[in-house]
């Protein structure tokens, strides 16, 4: 796959409807969400199509049994509501400003998420942009995903491309690491060795490209380590993703 796949943009836009009704597989969803972060037009379209889908889904009214209500109301006592999305403004507040600012802001968000792997979007010209490291993985023909959901409602997805030799992690609603600690990522070698692959950004929702060569990796692990990370895991992984070879 080249960096300037002509059909790419068109294809991605056309997924808005399928995305709005959850009709994408994990990989397509990851790709489309990466695109959404940069495309205000698609965000608006998805929002409006979700309203339409909602009308479709509200035709069936079936009251759940009373026990469900009791369990829900008992359950919320044990769950802390998430704080509002991190400081600096949500997408929606940015959206009300000029399109250029949105584009820049989206690029900043993406860059923060992706780390220092790619600086090209800063060029600021309007020509075709280089794909970021994350986009190259997501768009690779051999990209595959492994997703894990956790009991607290958070989830993490690994996307790996053997041909790119890289893997990324996307998290949703991940609890932040405790004070003085960080989440460290590891690539598991075929020999079973855990190779440090970077520290996850301290954000609940993030996309991070793992350091190192993932072309042979058999798994991705996450451990809790002291700030700054460790050369070797000092605790059992909180999550381990097995990768298909």
């Amino acid at each position, binding site marked *: 796959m080249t960096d300037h796949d002509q059909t790419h943009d068109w294809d991605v836009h056309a997924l808005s409807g*399928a995305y709005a009704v959850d009709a994408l597989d994990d990989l397509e969803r990851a790709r489309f969400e990466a695109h959404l972060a940069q495309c205000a037009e698609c965000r608006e379209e998805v929002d409006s199509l*979700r309203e339409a889908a909602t009308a479709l889904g509200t035709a*069936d009214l079936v*009251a*759940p049994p*009373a026990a469900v209500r009791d369990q*829900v109301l008992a359950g919320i006592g044990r769950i802390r*509501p998430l704080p509002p999305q991190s400081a600096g403004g949500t997408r929606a507040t940015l959206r009300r400003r000029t399109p250029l600012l949105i584009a820049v802001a989206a690029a900043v968000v993406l860059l923060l998420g992706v780390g220092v792997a790619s600086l090209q979007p800063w060029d600021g010209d309007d020509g075709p942009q280089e794909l970021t490291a994350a986009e190259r993985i997501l768009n690779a023909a051999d990209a595959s995903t492994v997703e894990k959901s956790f009991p607290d409602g958070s989830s993490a997805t690994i996307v790996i491309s053997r041909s790119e030799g890289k893997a990324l992690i996307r998290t949703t609603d991940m609890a932040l690491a405790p004070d003085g600690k960080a989440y460290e990522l590891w690539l598991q070698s075929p020999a079973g060795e855990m190779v440090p692959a970077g520290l996850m950004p301290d954000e609940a929702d993030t996309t991070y490209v793992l350091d190192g060569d993932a072309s042979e990796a058999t798994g991705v692990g996450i451990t809790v380590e002291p700030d700054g990370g460790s050369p070797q895991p000092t605790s059992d992984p909180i999550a381990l993703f097995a990768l298909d070879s």
Partner: protein
Amino acid sequence: MDPVPGDPAGAPRTGAPAGGHGPDLGPLLQQAARGDSAAFATLYDATAARVHGLVLRVVRDPAQAEEVTQEVFLEIWRQASRYDVARGSALAWLMTITHRKAVDRVRSAEAATRRDVTYEQSNRAVEHDTTVEAAHASLEAHRVRAALTQLTDVQREAIELAYFGGYTHTEVAALLDLPVGTAKTRIRDGLIRLRDTIGVGR
């Protein structure tokens, strides 16, 4: 029009009528985000029947559907602060979470054990009848039904298979004998027409 449910442990209610003129959901979400469980109980009562109706339609198995409905509301409680009025109605936000959870459940169940298709189809007929009954009762359902007649058969089938069947657009294409890549376009075109006919969104 609804009595205010002051007692969280009170008798179960059937939820707000389909017209959507129940309590204003946005402010309730806002209060819930600050930990107001009474506001959340009101939100639950106003939306439980819609949420459960959709979950049941997608998941089909009543026991599993109850689990999913419970998960959905716990998730709504957890994520209440993330609702952004600039991105759409509170109901759409809530139903988006609902649909995603329901679809996740059928797909993971499917991955665990490839289900018997015959069983599923016979089950679908039963489930469908009970929900159609509820749908007939509502004015909104009529509106949606009328809007659905504006779609081509393929658009309507593609949307229904995706939304109620929980199938991916690739699976929808296979089910409808469409070339791969066509179903996503049918789904999008159909949703756009639906949106413009019912006059929701932008």
